[in-house]
């Protein structure tokens, strides 16, 4: 088995607001192996973006702060690394793409300006070499007319094209880990599939590990090796994609699987998990999923289940009877 390149160990990230401390991410563990595609799934508000910003050292601070745990990149704890160290890592080692391709590019500069600036951050190249590399990157992410695109402004491109440009910028320095925070959520379904294909292709060609963050288990099924299911700031299930799809060990995961359109051929009646994600910190005792769980038992409300298991872990009493 290959080595873990990024390891998140007991990460706790809180926001200190007027209403007190909001534990948006509450002690999560996972690791990413070299060249792997790891999925992180969960409903909106469960702490996925906060997790990725914590890794990147880009939390809005204040009010955000890492209050516990560690983040290891190649064995180095970067959870409280200096800004100068993080700046070296960002782009070079760990890069990120965001949900909104419409707002991820500066409207007042051309694609070329921004892409070349990204390349120049970590490479000392001549002007011609920079331009060549920019064209090469645009071709790599499947954009035609690369040379002309350099002179165009973000508003002249479609959402899918912009997301490709963002991927090109993120890939410009061959990072070891690429965090993709819902990169296709804002795009049409067909474009979404193309972007996912592109990311799988880049992963194969460059061996860049990808953390694919999404609220859509369908996306995970398409491209990931392993998946971490998050709920209300905690990991509730983790394992190989196949295991999780075939034998989900948490009612929340089951709900997510049932709510994937198409997969079970019942397009007309889409399943939704009733209720919504609790506000971080609002449930202090018992299983966080208990208020929405169909199988809730008495002990679920009193005791907090642990994340247990070997390669396929889950945080649910239903699946821990035998353990």
């Amino acid at each position, binding site marked *: 088995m290959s080595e873990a390149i990024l390891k998140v160990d007991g990460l706790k990230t809180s926001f200190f607001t007027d209403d007190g401390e909001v534990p948006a991410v509450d002690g999560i563990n996972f690791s990413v192996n070299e060249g792997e595609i790891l999925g992180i799934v969960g409903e909106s508000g469960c702490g996925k973006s906060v997790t990725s910003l914590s890794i990147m050292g880009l939390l809005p601070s204040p009010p955000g702060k890492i209050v516990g745990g560690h983040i290891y990149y190649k064995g180095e704890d970067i959870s409280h690394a200096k800004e100068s160290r993080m700046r070296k890592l960002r782009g070079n080692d760990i890069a990120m793409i*965001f949900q909104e391709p419409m707002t991820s590019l500066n409207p007042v500069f051309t694609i070329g300006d921004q892409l070349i600036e990204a390349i120049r951050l970590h490479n000392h190249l001549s002007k011609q070499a920079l331009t060549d590399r920019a064209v090469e990157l645009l071709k790599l992410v499947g954009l035609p007319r690369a040379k002309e695109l350099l002179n165009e402004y973000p508003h002249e491109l*479609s959402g899918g094209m912009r997301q490709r440009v*963002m991927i090109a910028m993120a890939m410009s320095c061959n990072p070891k880990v690429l965090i993709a925070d819902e990169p296709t959520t804002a795009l049409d379904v067909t474009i979404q599939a193309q972007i996912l294909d592109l990311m799988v292709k880049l992963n194969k060609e460059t061996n860049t590990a990808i953390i694919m963050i999404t609220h859509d288990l369908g996306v995970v099924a398409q491209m990931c090796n392993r998946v971490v299911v998050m709920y209300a700031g905690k990991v509730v299930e983790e394992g190989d994609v196949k295991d999780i799809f075939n034998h989900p060990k948490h009612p929340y995961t089951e709900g997510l699987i049932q709510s994937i359109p198409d997969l079970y051929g019942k397009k007309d009646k889409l399943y939704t998990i009733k209720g919504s994600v609790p506000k971080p910190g609002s449930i202090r005792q018992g299983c966080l999923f208990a208020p929405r769980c169909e199988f809730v038992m008495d002990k679920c409300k009193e005791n907090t289940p642990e994340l247990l298991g070997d390669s396929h872990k889950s945080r649910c009493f239903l699946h821990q009877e035998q353990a």
Partner: protein
Amino acid sequence: MSQATQAKPEQYIVKDKSPMIMAINDFWKAFRKNKPAIAGSIIVAFFVLLAIFANFITPQGINDQNIGIRLQPPSAAHWFGTDDFGRDIFSRIIFGARLSLRVGFLAVIGSIIVGTFLGVIAGYFGKFLDVLISRAFDILLAFPSILLSIAIVAILGPSLNNALVAIAIVNVPVFGRLVRSRVLTVKEEEYVVAARSIGMGDMRIIFHHVLPNSFAPIIVQGTLNIATAILDAAGLGFLGMGAQAPLPEWGKMLSDSREYIQNAPWTVLFPGLAIVLVVVGFNLIGDGLRDALDPRMKN
């Protein structure tokens, strides 16, 4: 793969290949439709030309005194009449344009430079410095601007250049607050987080993202502030805290002639008109720029 690329084919055919020129064209299209702004531009251009070519235009020297022709009404020889020393008011007003425009432009440029610097520090680096700078701005803004400039001139000593410095200082918080608020907005933009996520440092973010995106509101505010700076300079001149005799500064001319307002109204009418015209001109341009540059007005 082609869905994304086929999205808007027609756009590529008609597209002008020089985006910078396109942006200027867009701006000009919006600005041109604004009649008052065009009128303002003509007024200001007129005064700028007067100021530049003052030496060639003025029929008389500004300090040519001739007691024999004092307080004469407008005539073919003296279009705007003469003042109490028999000086040609027309010539003095033309040279006065030079003084007023210089004060207006330089004071505003000074305020923009200092205000931008402080605003970026306060907005971008935040925390203690933000509190310190923002409170200082609040205090400065709590005083009426003319009172504050009088206080500063009282310390520096009355002269046109000290009035310029005082006006620049008084206007620093205007730009400081504007830039700070732009910085706070732009800092949260996803493209700044995205830039940071690929390793861009603070200085580059400030120069590549924050300042270019603050440019338009600074230009708009700057234009409007040239008008107030000119007005304040005239006010200080009028109060004897700005330009000193025998400089042909409009405010100073007003105050020197105010005892003749009954017998020789032209001595105050023309300097007053000049002030009003220039101030209105800059205000009209400023409003026009705001409408043309405001991104919310565009699609």
